[in-house]
């Protein structure tokens, strides 16, 4: 699980330009703090699909709340 979370954090920093110093595993991704918007969800879904082979298209918004929730979804759904 930690490896998944670290890969996600690296992606948010390198691909979406999120400041790593304010990005914890439980930080709300789509609030004011980080500044991601819903359009970024396509980037996240694509990364998760390519990296972990898990489809997040059409899943509940709650799963995208934080690195913790995305990692939990990946763990639960990966083959």
């Amino acid at each position, binding site marked *: 699980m930690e490896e998944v979370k670290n890969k996600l954090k690296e992606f948010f920093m390198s691909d979406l330009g999120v400041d790593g110093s304010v990005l914890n595993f439980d930080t709300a991704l789509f609030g004011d703090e980080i500044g991601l918007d*819903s359009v970024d969800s*396509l980037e996240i*879904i*694509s990364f998760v699909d390519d990296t972990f082979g898990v489809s997040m*298209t*059409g899943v509940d918004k709650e799963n995208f709340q934080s690195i913790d929730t995305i990692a939990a979804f990946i763990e639960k759904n990966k083959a």
Partner: protein
Amino acid sequence: MKVAIVTGASKGIGKACALRLARDGYTTVINYSSSDEAALQTLDQIKAEGGDGMVYKANVSVLAEVKAMVRDVFKAYGRIDVLVNNAGIVRDEYLLMMNPDTVDKCFNLNVKGYLYCAQAVALKMFKQKSGVIVNMSSVSSKFALPGQTVYSATKGAVNSMTQTLAKELGGYGIRVNAVAPGFISTEMIEAIPEETRKGYVERVPLKRFGTADEVANLVSAIVSDQFAYVTGQVFVMDGGLSL
């Protein structure tokens, strides 16, 4: 190789779009839900003209069937460049005769079906950093015709989703536009009594019905690079009916 999916492509405007895109060099997926023979005839025609493609039976108002179609098409060809959301139904009913089943059927196919297909291809197009979606709307979304409350509402929704998707996906090289045809000579129009049809023609400034090929020509132009800077637009093609 470029790949196009046309939903509802076994007859009418969808068929004309499939044939035209195949002539433009697209490997064309002819989606259909019931007319096996008509879909195969469309594919035969494409192949006779030197094109390529496949038929794919799927009810696009069912998410699982849409997902399976897009997955199988991608597995077969490795990319999806164009989606023409065309599969739809018309059910004319005056407000007080409106049946809830009609409302569900129209919204399921004309709205949910379009959304499901757009969602399913969007990730593939995102990864390619290119793609074009054309949503078949209707002049009914711009020009009120009594009895078409439900149909026009679904097509109004198509116009709105076209604009929103264009904004949402534009940054990733994906264009989304809509075509809103008026009276087009298809089996649906042919089934209308001649006197009624004459009345319709009188209302069209160009004094004739359009053809499915003319709609397909517009779709062909929209998906081409000549329209590379055009997104979020609804192209009315109605011989002036809505003026």
